């Protein structure tokens, strides 16, 4: 049984599972009016919850709960870049975008990704954060994160992934330079983008410069990395270094543009995407106004449409990077939060869907947490 932690442009809410995923009760708001980019529970210590927040006026911060949301306190030292000598190039965190619980062997460790691209680490459950020099001060940083470029939400270090077998083995995804790998707990980084297109650059196959929307390791086969990129759906099986565009097997009329991809926690060949329209001026809504997830059960060789329960027409959903997730139940539960404030749930691995919340503010993140 899981609760769903919802981050929106106007605050946070919790959808409580009232039994077997059959009924849901909405609680909130928390932090009403604050922009919540991520709202996450710690799988190692389920009562520890972190929220990445800012407001239209106020600077970014992190709020922490150690009692599953009953009480909250602010981080004593939120993610921030080091003080710079040159004000012209001095960086300041606009917002923390992604919060990542650390490796199971490192209790209390969290990682954060920010805009402008920045990597931060906490060793005290998010109370204090330190800038990770291995990325933030890397000699290539000005090329990996060119100033002034980025998404409408700013240039992003939008995701951090840790190899469950090795705390020192990490991947990050950025909107400015694609995917990077570290083998030394973030002390050094190398691009991992071979085969991934960047069709908005003069060289469509650069070493870096791609826009990696989302990456995920297959939990039962962590050498398999799924990627939903600005330019399609990809997969690589390490130690290979060249990605394969598995999205080419998607129906051409649907395409393989989207923001996120969810792997099955128990089947390394299965994953889901939520496609969006990337034609013409990039509407980034459900193609044709007909929402659906697409599932592969053969590692991306083929994809099957799953749209049971979704509106058959005139439904123009957008699901952002952090807003598509799974629980751990059998059969697997899938959940997506849309920018129109609707939350959709499937309790049968995507076969059928139903709306479990509506009229929320623009949803930025949706995460499953162990029920309190």
């Amino acid at each position, binding site marked *: 049984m899981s609760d769903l932690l919802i981050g929106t442009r106007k605050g946070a809410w919790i959808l409580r599972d009232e039994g077997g995923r059959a009924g849901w009760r909405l609680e909130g708001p928390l932090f009403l009016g604050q922009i919540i980019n991520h709202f996450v529970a710690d799988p190692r210590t389920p009562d520890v919850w972190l929220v990445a927040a800012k407001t239209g*006026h106020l600077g970014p911060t992190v709020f922490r709960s150690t009692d599953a949301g009953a009480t909250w306190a602010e981080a*004593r030292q939120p993610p921030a870049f080091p003080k710079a000598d040159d004000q012209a190039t001095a960086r300041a965190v606009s917002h923390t975008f992604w919060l990542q619980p650390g490796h199971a062997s490192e209790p209390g460790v969290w990682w954060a990704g920010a805009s402008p691209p920045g990597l931060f680490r906490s060793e005290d459950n998010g109370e204090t954060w330190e800038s990770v020099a291995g990325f933030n001060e890397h000699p290539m940083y000005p090329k990996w994160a060119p100033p002034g470029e980025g998404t409408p939400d700013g240039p992003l270090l939008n995701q951090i992934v840790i190899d469950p077998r090795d705390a020192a083995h990490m991947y990050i995804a950025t909107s400015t330079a694609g995917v990077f790998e570290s083998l030394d707990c973030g002390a050094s980084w190398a691009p991992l983008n071979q085969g991934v297109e960047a069709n908005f650059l003069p060289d469509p196959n650069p070493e870096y410069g791609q826009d990696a929307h989302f990456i995920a390791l297959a939990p039962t086969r962590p050498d398999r990395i799924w990627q939903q990129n600005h330019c399609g759906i990809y997969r690589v099986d390490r130690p290979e270094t060249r990605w394969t565009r598995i999205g080419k097997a998607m129906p051409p009329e649907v395409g393989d543009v989207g923001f996120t991809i969810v792997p099955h926690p128990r089947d390394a060949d299965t994953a889901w995407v939520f496609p969006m329209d990337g034609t013409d001026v990039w509407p980034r809504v459900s193609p044709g106004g007909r929402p659906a997830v697409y599932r592969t059960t053969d590692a991306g060789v083929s994809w099957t449409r799953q749209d049971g329960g979704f509106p058959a027409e005139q439904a123009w959903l957008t699901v952002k990077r952090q807003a598509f997730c799974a629980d751990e139940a059998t059969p697997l539960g899938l959940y997506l939060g849309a920018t129109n404030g609707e939350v959709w749930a499937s309790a049968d691995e995507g076969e059928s869907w139903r709306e479990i919340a509506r009229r929320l503010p623009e949803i930025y993140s949706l995460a499953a947490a162990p029920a309190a």
Partner: protein
Amino acid sequence: MIRVLVPSQLHAYTGGASRLEAAGAAIADVLDDLDRRFPGLKFRIIDEQDRVRPHMRLFIGKTAARDIRAPLRDGDELLIFGALSGG
């Protein structure tokens, strides 16, 4: 002492108080004094490079201030506002 006007956006830090007094010979000192009493308040106004955040406004009396090194004299009023920031 410096009289300080705190905007509604920061009332969660000050326990709802909008009028405070703080000590300091410059804006930075006053904000440091407030941050000691209301932890976290300063970082939400001033970034890590000591710049006033884009949608915050500071005034000494009726004079706008963007540099937190600006000096203050005993009896001055520091007004902190949340400026327009979109819908």
